[in-house]
């Protein structure tokens, strides 16, 4: 499981430096210019957008291209290729000539990547799985950032006891090994027969919200730490002190002065964060404690494909390639964003 360590990789922003003026240009404009110049990061952004677009077009693909329901098993179905009709599940394709083997990649619109052992179209499932993986990855990253931001603003701004208590609690959660926390939460939530009821919120065990919430919650301290540090340093800055001196309310100061300034940190952390949450989701799903059937995600498809690994490797390979591409794109983009906003790279090589 990927370890997300913003501090270790030096993504901690000093408010003073990011706020500094560089030869008359605003830091944001300069960052934008650098990002545009960074072709690799732009390519990564394009790739990510493409993957998102394709994944969200999954229903279109299964309705109009593959013409199949990727969630219904199709054990006795047939497919017509080049005029020949073949069964989707073929008898005796295994090493010993026993059992059933799903059809391999046809490289045609139907069963482009072959079928899994329920006879379902793998290509369509990979797209649907991508949608779920991306929803959970992006959703949990946003959730973690939002919670962390609220706590960090409160802790960093009020300081004193508020800060001490919140930060200690975060440290405690941080000390709890991340995947163990996720496993504990997941097992308990998934074994609850009637789902989870908290007040008016009702979650059934098969809902995508369960892995989203779990992953979102466990990553809160990882974002909380760098943001709190930045809020603390912002609080000492002249413009905030000036606001206090003018009698501005805490609430107003947080929203008008501090929040816009921590935005850059959150933005830079976001792609790296989504990369991490997507990897976490796939791991949990692979361990069967993430996304639950009948829903599919890249992780669950890899798990489905494990038993077919030596006969129909594409079932497991294809979703893995999607994960690698997505996470790589996000990591490259995150790196590019960080470089663009990094005050330490004021002087850089030309050409």
């Amino acid at each position, binding site marked *: 499981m990927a370890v997300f360590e913003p501090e270790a990789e030096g993504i901690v922003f000093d408010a003073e430096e990011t706020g500094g003026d560089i030869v008359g240009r605003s830091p944001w404009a300069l960052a934008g210019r650098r990002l545009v110049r960074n072709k690799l990061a732009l390519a990564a952004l394009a790739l990510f957008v493409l993957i998102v677009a394709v994944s969200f077009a999954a229903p279109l693909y299964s309705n109009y291209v593959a013409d199949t329901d990727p969630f219904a098993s199709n054990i006795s179905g047939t497919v017509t290729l080049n005029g020949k009709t073949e069964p989707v599940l073929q008898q005796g394709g295994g090493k010993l000539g026993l059992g059933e083997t799903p059809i391999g990649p046809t490289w045609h619109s139907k069963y482009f990547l072959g079928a899994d052992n329920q006879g379902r179209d793998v290509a369509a499932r990979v797209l649907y799985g991508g949608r779920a993986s991306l929803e959970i990855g992006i959703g949990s990253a946003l959730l973690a950032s939002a919670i962390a931001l609220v706590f960090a603003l409160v802790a960093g701004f009020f300081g004193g006891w508020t800060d001490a208590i919140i930060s200690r609690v975060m440290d405690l959660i941080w000390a709890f*090994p991340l995947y163990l926390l996720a496993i504990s939460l997941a097992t308990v939530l998934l074994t609850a027969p009637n789902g989870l009821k908290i007040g008016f919120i009702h979650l059934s065990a098969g809902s995508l919200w369960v892995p989203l919430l779990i992953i979102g919650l466990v990553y809160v301290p990882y974002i909380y730490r760098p943001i709190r540090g930045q809020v603390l340093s912002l609080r000492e800055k002249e413009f905030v002190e000036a606001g206090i001196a003018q009698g501005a309310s805490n609430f107003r100061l947080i929203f008008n002065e501090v929040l816009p300034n921590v935005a850059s940190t959150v933005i830079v952390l976001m792609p790296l964060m989504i990369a991490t949450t997507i990897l976490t989701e796939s791991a949990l799903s692979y361990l069967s404690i993430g996304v639950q059937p009948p829903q599919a995600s890249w992780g669950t498809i890899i798990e489905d494909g494990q038993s077919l*690994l030596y006969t129909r490797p594409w079932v497991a390979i294809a979703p893995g390639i999607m994960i690698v591409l997505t996470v790589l794109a996000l990591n490259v983009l995150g790196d590019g964003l960080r470089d663009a906003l990094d005050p330490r790279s004021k002087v850089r090589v030309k050409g």
Partner: protein
Amino acid sequence: MLAFIVRRLLWMALVLFAISVLVFLIFFATPGVDPARQMAGRNPSAETIKSIKHEFGLDRSLPVRYGLMMKHMFITRDLISYGSHTRVIPEITSAAPVTLSLVFGAAIIWIVFSILFGVAAAVLRGTVFDPLLMILALIGISIPVFWLGEVVNLITQSRLHDSFLFSWVPPLGYTPLTQDPFMWFKQLIFPWLTLSVLYIGFYARVLRANLIETESEDYIRTARAKGLSERRVLFRHTLRTSMITFVSLFGLDFAVLVGGGALLTEVVFGLPGVGLLTFNSLTALDLPVIMTTVIYAAFFITLASALVDLVYAWLDPRVRLA
């Protein structure tokens, strides 16, 4: 230094306590969840549920329940898996050597290669090798380890197994070191490599960033002004201070892996370590085993993180003598 150690140990005790409470709350006090049913595994009999209710005092107050859980876990150590009807704790201790073998080997590989790549990238800054190495590292941290394991298996066990390259690769599994060291090595080499890929990428990037940051420190300029050779500046000054972060990260990651973080690798390669044990109990929803591995792993990791801080203090006199 003594004050530092005492402070650190007190914090450790607090963390241990908090973790046990958190685990307790997750397993025994999640709203809408009946812990007895959950503990009992799939399709439990009425007696089993009744005996669990009694043993864990599920009809009594929360603090009593917490006490009973801790008693079963650490004093009597008689938790029973309701799936396999075996005692949980001996199962864990017998699985531990497998996990240790896996993690030790991978750690050696990842230390060597990440230092090599990190230093090379930092030294070769300005050439094409630096971005090239960093892209490789980025790819390394973008690959899900379980998927990489499957690809490795596909190649070494199936597709190229009959070629001269991988015909020596034994079937998946584990042979104890004491029984056949050579077999032990052959069965572990691919798991080691697979597990270390992510960490090589991550550590190489961290080390490179640290080296470059340290490079701009005033004391590195002083070292050059002293007339030291570039090699000495690199190894005795830049690398030495950069290793502080490296070592502390390493301690924690190592602990997390030994504590069960190598779960995915163990599952893919069929290595019967603590991780595979956890996984099997996950698929069987065998809560006593999950709970115990979680608590034991968490304790181990907390202990290790305290150790790491002590090592950190030893490496960095600013912390030690503060």
